């Protein structure tokens, strides 16, 4: 196939507080074998050679696992291919003459740093609020002393495949982080090791999610459609169950126990 000519409309915003705008660039000689990010590399080389500021975007592994890359391409977080991160998207899915719009993930809880780069530290803080199993190094017993069914471990894995990219938030009209939070809650709650703290975990993570300014879930399920790891919205249902029963039992405990701390 001949190389493609593309028109790019890219969101440029020099600083967090400055006003952003779309800027148009023409790019010739795009090979179908390039990845989307390699295409942006070429654009940036062109800009640098003209001594202009290159487009800032985040990326690292470039193989769909680190969760660093994040941009909205033609209205879709991570672009139009399902089950694919931006870095795994290849130019063979575009056509000669296409106009492609590229902008950052947009959500109050993900402020823009520069151009296509946003700050997703809110996700870290949600994990810090309870997304772990409380075990110190050296306290573990033999790994095979507690059998875990293949089904449970596999279901847990499906949820643990979340790469923390935030596309679910960008896809959601309410900018809710429920898919991300529910994936972590499910990953751990489905394993016997994580069951013990499941309710407390759900309560604390949801509380932090609200504090960070993510919106509420109204079952739009756009998150599942755009999630590059195809995390299922069934996890949200599980989180809701966990959360509701946790709210009960924790209230009860507080009523009876009185300041156990």
């Amino acid at each position, binding site marked *: 196939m001949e190389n493609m000519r593309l028109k790019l409309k890219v969101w440029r915003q020099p600083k967090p507080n400055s006003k952003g705008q779309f800027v148009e660039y023409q790019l010739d000689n795009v090979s179908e074998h390039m990845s989307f990010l390699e295409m942006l590399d070429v654009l940036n080389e062109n800009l640098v050679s003209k001594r202009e500021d290159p487009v800032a975007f985040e990326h690292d592994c470039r193989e769909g696992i680190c969760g660093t890359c994040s941009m909205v391409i033609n209205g879709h977080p991570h672009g139009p291919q399902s089950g694919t991160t931006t870095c*795994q998207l290849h130019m063979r899915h575009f056509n000669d003459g296409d106009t492609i719009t590229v902008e950052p993930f947009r959500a109050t809880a993900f402020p823009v740093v520069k151009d296509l780069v946003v700050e997703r530290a809110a996700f870290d803080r949600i994990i810090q609020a309870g997304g772990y199993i409380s075990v110190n190094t050296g306290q*573990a017993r033999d790994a095979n002393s507690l059998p875990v069914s293949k089904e449970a471990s596999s279901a847990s894995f499906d949820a643990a495949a979340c790469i923390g990219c935030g596309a679910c938030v960008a896809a959601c009209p309410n900018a809710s982080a429920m898919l991300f939070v529910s994936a972590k809650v499910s990953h751990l709650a489905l394993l016997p090791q994580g069951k013990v703290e499941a309710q407390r975990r759900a309560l604390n993570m949801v509380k932090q999610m609200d504090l960070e300014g993510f919106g509420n879930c109204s079952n739009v399920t756009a998150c599942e459609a755009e999630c590059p790891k195809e995390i299922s919205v069934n996890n949200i249902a599980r989180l809701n169950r966990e959360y509701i029963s946790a709210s009960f039992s924790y209230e009860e405990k507080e009523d009876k126990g009185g300041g156990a701390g």
Partner: protein
Amino acid sequence: MALNGKTPPGPLTDKWTKYRSTVPLVAPNNKRRIDIIVVGSGLAGAAAAATFGELGYNVKCFTFHDSPRRAHSIAAQGGINAAKNYRNDGDSVYRLFYDTIKGGDYRARESNVYRLAEVSTNIIDQAVAQGVPFAREYGGLLDNRSFGGVQVSRTFYARGQTGQQLLIGAYQSLSRQISLGTVQQYNRHEMLDLVMVDGKARGIIARNLLTGELERHAAHAVVLATGGYGNVFYLSTNAMMCNVTAAWRSVRRGALMANPCFTQIHPTCIPVSGDYQSKLTLMSESLRNDGRVWVPKKQEDAAAIRAGKKTGRDIAEDDRDYFLERRYPAFGNLVPRDVASRAAKVACDEGLGVAPTGLAVFMDFSAAIDRYGKSKASTMGNHHPDAATVRDLGEKVVKEKYGNLFAMYEKITGEDPYKMPMKIYPAVHYTMGGLWVDYNLETNISGLFAAGECNFSDHGANRLGASALMQGLADGYFVLPYTIGNFLANEIRTPKIDANSPEFIKAEADTKTRIDQLMSIKGKQSVESFHRRLGKIMWEKCGMARNAEGLTLARQQIRELRDEFYQDVFVPGSATGEYNPELEKALRVADFLEMGELMVVDALSRKESCGGHFREEYQTEEGEALRDDANYAYVAAWEYNGWDTDPVLHKEELVFENVELKSRSYK
């Protein structure tokens, strides 16, 4: 300088147990007064920081990533080794130790490797307790698979995302400590210098990548867990931001860099497709459990495939050369990486390569699909299945095992690997070399420790598959938390280190000068273009095969390139008040330009072939690596004193008391 590895006395099997129970301890009330800086929050760094926090130290942990969960460790696919012997197939701590020493071509320290094998079993227990969803069998117990260079099944895995799951486990433990306040996490902070006070490592200069501000951070000890430097080759399987800066800046302050030329070239990666290419993608070694590697026997077939006139499927069975099975019948497709990579290179050098560039061999799953299909049909009671049924069932089994890798391959190449054999070629993957450390994982600078891929310690001249995750986590969870006590027990009376002392002010000023210099060049060429050119020199002359002539030329070329860089690089934007990824890159490439030269110097001085270091002048008649144990059974630890003087070699002689040095054979 006399290098003392500080290996404890006594029989190999007792060293660690005994040492661990006699190493000086720091009492809990004193731990609270002691500050530790951990640079890096990949497997090694996150594990260390979390464990230090649990023990009660005050920890500051740094990463240039936006979150600890993004570290390059996340990308590890295939698995992690441990001498659990759950298969009852004859595995043991000794066998894991022996395989690692032999796999490393007898260039690693026995005592460290034995300890690694010992603690390997604790890692699996720890990870399971954290909620790592390892693969399991129907009975609910953990599953295993095989990796190259070994004849037992000791690799634990979590689909094709083992590194991701292990890192998430460590990240969660770290997050817990952050919430408890024992660890202060500094994301988007890059260490740009090491600060020494009275000969001890006492802090770092870090740059806040969002604002460009330089910060001084002080502590009683500094731990580097900053990963490998494979990106000196520009194209590699490493994540784009992996770099050598933290280690290199420490070398600039007096730390020794050990065996820098020991680089691992991984045999099974997706081949280069064009000159815009930014990185290479690994196809996990686990695929060699079932994939058969071959090239056409006839050059005309290879030429036809390259020209697109034939495909792999048009080549008759008799016209294929399964060269690994032919050359290494005992290990077949599961020979160690260095051996497999060189064999692929030899095949392509003979004109048998199968990609348009001439640089690719096939990895073929049709035999496995057939075998699994028949066996699956037979378990379903169908003893005479037709070909389509066999294929269908077989593809399902293969999909269950390697589905995500096959999908990744298809996304990148646009070809369906269930139907067409994969095309693969070796690529830079891992660096065995790194900061020199003793048994305590302490560098020659007192108070400076190095863990994970950034140290040189356990893999000799070649690392076995699934052993890097093991080493990173062993260092972080189970070794450093003990051995650092050896240093810190003498520091309990040292007051808080003052980050406003002249040493800190000077180090910060030095860093600022370096940044200002890069910003002020305002030349015409991009940082990226220099990195690409350096990578090309390294790959061609210090890659899979090296010789004195090429290396000498490479050294010259790197020096010229470096001069050009400092005259003509263009770094846009400004150094402060904004997020500037180009400046970040420039600082990293500047350090690669020095490290690259040191690698070449090391490769030149090691006049033998061993593991990943293949000097063409030193090979057997059959083209195998020819070691020279009489003269080179040492660790080459280099002191670097700037551009104008030659690096100085310090040797740590390797003493083998437990294994006999043999020529490594996988035939």
